[in-house]
């Protein structure tokens, strides 16, 4: 099959998945109490006639199937509805667009950390299997997956920010610094684009703790994956062939083994990216990072179903596409892969 066909096929296969996602989010969010409540405050909740007005105004009286139909129609126009009163009822898309760059920034920096740390650690661990380096890396990776990240966030904040003052307390930039001109909405990258090095470093300093906490689990997973696929690769016949050619161990590992071991790691990295986005729910709450994670927690607290739905939709779609891209990337890494 040609790559183009494969991509088309995968995209077509996405349609039922996306419909499924919308279905799940829609019906779940309609189980969340009374959707009208998203527009109510403690003070107005006691007035049922107001609730009725709100219901009428938002088509909440229609049967669920009809509402779902409206939802799908809106969705096809990229309209995810409106936020609840917690976000002033503005369009969900607009709110997501406001908050998403901050999350994406964390996730990207987190991903960079993951790969920069995870891959070399995995390789080292595999090369020095059963040596102390390996034990340390393995234990580290196990601690990483066993770590309650929200707790780690508190602890690193307590020690590194409060006690030692090495890192800023919260936020993306100090208020005294004007954010760089908006291109991507991600301060670090915008600062780079604008060539504002000071701002860049300050922004990175702000992002480093949250993105580290965010990335920890994925880093551990990537390390383990890299280790095991490296070990797997090192037992392959072609590695023996490479050695029999007289190549040095360094080239055998970095050229022959690494290329092959990276392939399964790529898949994991794709999934890890989704993990990073959802991990934002915790991390952003702890580090006061104004991204979609915190937005979603707020929305859940306010039972703002359109926002919850929009958030889950966005993450799921990014997740699905990240995996698609990874699968396509696979083809470049491994010529054997037949799409299927």
């Amino acid at each position, binding site marked *: 099959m040609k790559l183009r066909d494969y991509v088309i096929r995968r995209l077509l296969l996405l349609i039922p998945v996306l419909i499924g996602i919308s279905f799940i989010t829609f019906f779940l969010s309609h189980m969340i109490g009374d959707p009208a409540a998203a527009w109510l405050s403690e003070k107005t909740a006691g007035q049922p006639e107001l609730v009725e007005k709100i219901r009428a105004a938002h088509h909440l009286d229609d049967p669920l199937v009809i509402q779902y139909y409206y939802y799908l129609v809106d969705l096809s126009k990229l309209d995810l509805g409106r936020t609840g009163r917690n976000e002033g009822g503005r369009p969900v898309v607009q709110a997501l667009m406001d908050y998403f760059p901050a999350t994406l920034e964390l996730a990207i920096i987190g991903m960079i950390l993951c790969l920069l740390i995870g891959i070399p650690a995995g390789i080292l661990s595999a090369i020095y299997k059963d040596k102390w380096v390996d034990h340390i890396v393995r234990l580290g990776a196990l601690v990483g997956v066993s770590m309650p990240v929200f707790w780690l966030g508190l602890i690193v904040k307590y020690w590194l920010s409060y006690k030692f003052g090495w890192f800023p307390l919260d936020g993306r930039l100090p208020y005294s610094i004007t954010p760089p001109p908006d291109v991507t909405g991600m301060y670090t990258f915008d600062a780079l684009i604008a060539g504002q090095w000071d701002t860049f470093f300050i922004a990175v300093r702000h992002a480093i703790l949250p993105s580290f906490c965010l990335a920890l689990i994925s880093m551990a997973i990537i390390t383990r994956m890299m280790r095991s696929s490296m070990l797997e690769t090192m037992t392959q*016949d072609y590695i023996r062939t490479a050695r029999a*050619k007289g190549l040095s161990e360094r080239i055998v590992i970095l050229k022959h083994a690494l290329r092959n071991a990276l392939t399964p790691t790529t898949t994991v990295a794709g999934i890890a990216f989704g993990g990073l986005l959802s991990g934002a729910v915790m991390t952003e709450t702890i580090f006061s990072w104004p991204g979609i994670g915190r937005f979603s927690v707020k929305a859940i607290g306010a039972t703002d179903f359109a926002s919850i739905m929009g958030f889950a939709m966005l993450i799921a779609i990014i997740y699905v596409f990240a995996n698609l891209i990874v699968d396509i990337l696979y083809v470049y890494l491994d010529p054997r892969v037949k799409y299927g």
Partner: protein
Amino acid sequence: MPDVLISVKNLKTNFYTYAGVVKALDGINLDIYKGETIGLVGETGCGKSVTALSIIRLIQWPPGKIDEGTITFEGRDLLKLPESEMRKIRGNKISMIFQEPMNSFNPVFTIGDQIAEVIMLHQKKTKKEALAQAIEMLKFTSIPAPERVAKSYPHELSGGMLQRAMISMALACQPELLIADEPTTALDVTIEAQILELMKGLKTKMGASILLITHDLGIIAEMCDRVGVMYAGNIVELADVSTIFKNPSHPYTSGLICAIPSLATKQACRLDTIPGNVPNLIRPPEGCRFHPRCSKAMDRCKKEKPGVYDLGNGHLVSCFLYAEGQKQ
């Protein structure tokens, strides 16, 4: 007597596994002469591959380790060479081809790149020259459309083609010894015939010695000048081909030869069998490792390891039947 190219003395290789120490090679002695094809034959797990890998020092630690012995090549003991020196020999003076051509090429590089790599490494050529030479080598093994093959990835070629490419790669630096570890086992009979024919032809052209490992006595008969028969980490008998087949001396060798149905004779008679199974090398039998399956076993066989006895004409046997005083 012809010149000795490489001389293996008392080679012992062990694997330190979780289950215990696998005593894979139990003191191998083997001389390979210049220009000959020497065969190593034996059943699964008897240590053929380990012998080959030990010679070019590709036993991986952990779990494997060459614990004893010398391998003399060009006046030097390969086992004492530093790794960097050894690397200059591998792929250059001694090269190797493996059983599974499919798995022996790196799936993510083209065939041409992989052949060129070894040329660049040992002959200090540029990538372009090396690639050109790689195509020359492919032509040498009479692969159709060598240019196209050079640009292909391994999975795009059939097993037979890959094994030819493998041979091209092994011969790229005109080695003095080519170790072929079951080069045709994974191939179909008709393809096997092609490859064997090719190897015969190349051998006369290149003049390299070949260490041919197989479990197929037919291939031995067809290809080799001399044969070593291995059993459970030992070479139990070593002689030239016709001697082995006409006059097998070790009980194992004769059992092996008689266990194969013959194409020529009619099927009337029953096959001879060697009772029992190949032993576990973690706890190999004491004394002669073959004694539990041997119809001619004596008390002595259970306790002592037999030495090597020369029956004349380079016919070596490791069996007490031929020890001094036992000789019939």
